[in-house]
């Protein structure tokens, strides 16, 4: 005769059924302890809870990941981590990663103020070239344009000039070009094309008193610029008669990178 440590059965008083285990099912197990029978009741609810696992403990997925089709589909829908210069481009060598704003410096325009009561060369307008706009290793051209006008007076010429400096001051500023509005004229426009060599220097075609540097094969002048600090383009008025009033109506620059 065989000896059993455990045996059990459905509790005989419950209504029998077929199909899945139900929470109300009750199984009675019996064992022999010290020569006496001990009954242990296990409910269907206890078995279902144990089978569904309770609180999950996550670990490594065994088997092939791609066989976890729903997980693999969700992973496939995710975007790769952005890596500047690899799967996302830069703008003028500036990374787009992270928060914040990247301002675009091109097409800066400045409206001038009146200059009168002096025959000294005087700033009428300025346009900021922000630090690090010019990038080492990235040559570019800067096109400066400006229009001066005679606001009042008609007795003498008015000079309209362009300079560059690291502050809004003419002291130590680098001269870029100048034209003169004749005694009977009211407007004068000038333009200059600066070339940033990507290494620390700016050169400008130097027909100093011509309206445009595109109409003459004059010489070049080169000046050192520190691109790591703010620079300013200064648009100046110089009245040869202190009683006249002149103005840089507007001055602007455009960067062609």
């Amino acid at each position, binding site marked *: 005769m065989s000896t059993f440590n455990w045996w059990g059965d459905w509790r005989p008083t419950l209504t029998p059924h077929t199909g899945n285990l139900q929470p109300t099912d009750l199984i009675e197990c019996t064992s022999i302890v010290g020569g006496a029978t001990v009954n242990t009741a296990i409910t269907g609810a206890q078995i279902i809870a144990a089978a569904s696992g309770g609180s999950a403990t996550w670990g490594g997925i065994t088997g092939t990941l791609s066989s976890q089709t729903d997980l693999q589909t969700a992973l496939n829908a995710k975007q790769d981590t952005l890596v500047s210069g690899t799967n996302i481009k830069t703008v003028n060598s500036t990374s787009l990663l992270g928060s914040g704003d990247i301002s675009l410096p091109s097409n800066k325009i400045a409206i001038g103020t009146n200059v009168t009561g002096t025959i000294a060369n005087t700033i009428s307008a300025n346009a900021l070239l922000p630090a690090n706009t010019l990038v080492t290793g990235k040559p570019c051209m800067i096109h400066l344009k400006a229009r001066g006008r005679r606001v009042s007076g008609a007795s003498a010429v008015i000079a309209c000039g362009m300079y560059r400096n690291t502050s809004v001051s003419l002291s*130590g500023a680098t001269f870029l070009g100048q034209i003169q509005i004749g005694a009977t004229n009211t407007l004068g426009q000038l333009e200059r094309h600066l070339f940033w060599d990507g290494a620390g220097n700016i050169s*400008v075609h130097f027909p100093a008193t011509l309206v445009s540097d595109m109409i003459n094969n004059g010489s070049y002048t080169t000046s050192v610029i520190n691109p790591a600090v703010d620079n300013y383009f200064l648009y100046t008025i110089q009245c040869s008669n202190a009683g006249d009033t002149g103005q840089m109506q507007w001055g602007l620059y455009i960067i062609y990178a």
Partner: protein
Amino acid sequence: MLNTFTYNEIEYTITGPIEVISDTQLHVETDKGIILVDDTMDIYKELTNG
């Protein structure tokens, strides 16, 4: 004759003519372009007395 000056920690070498553009301002041709020198700069007095 003075042929170099320093302003804002940049040393300039005078390479060409000095033009008087007003009673307080000069255009000075240097190795770093034409620089406006005015009477707020130490070099102005030296250049106008020279």
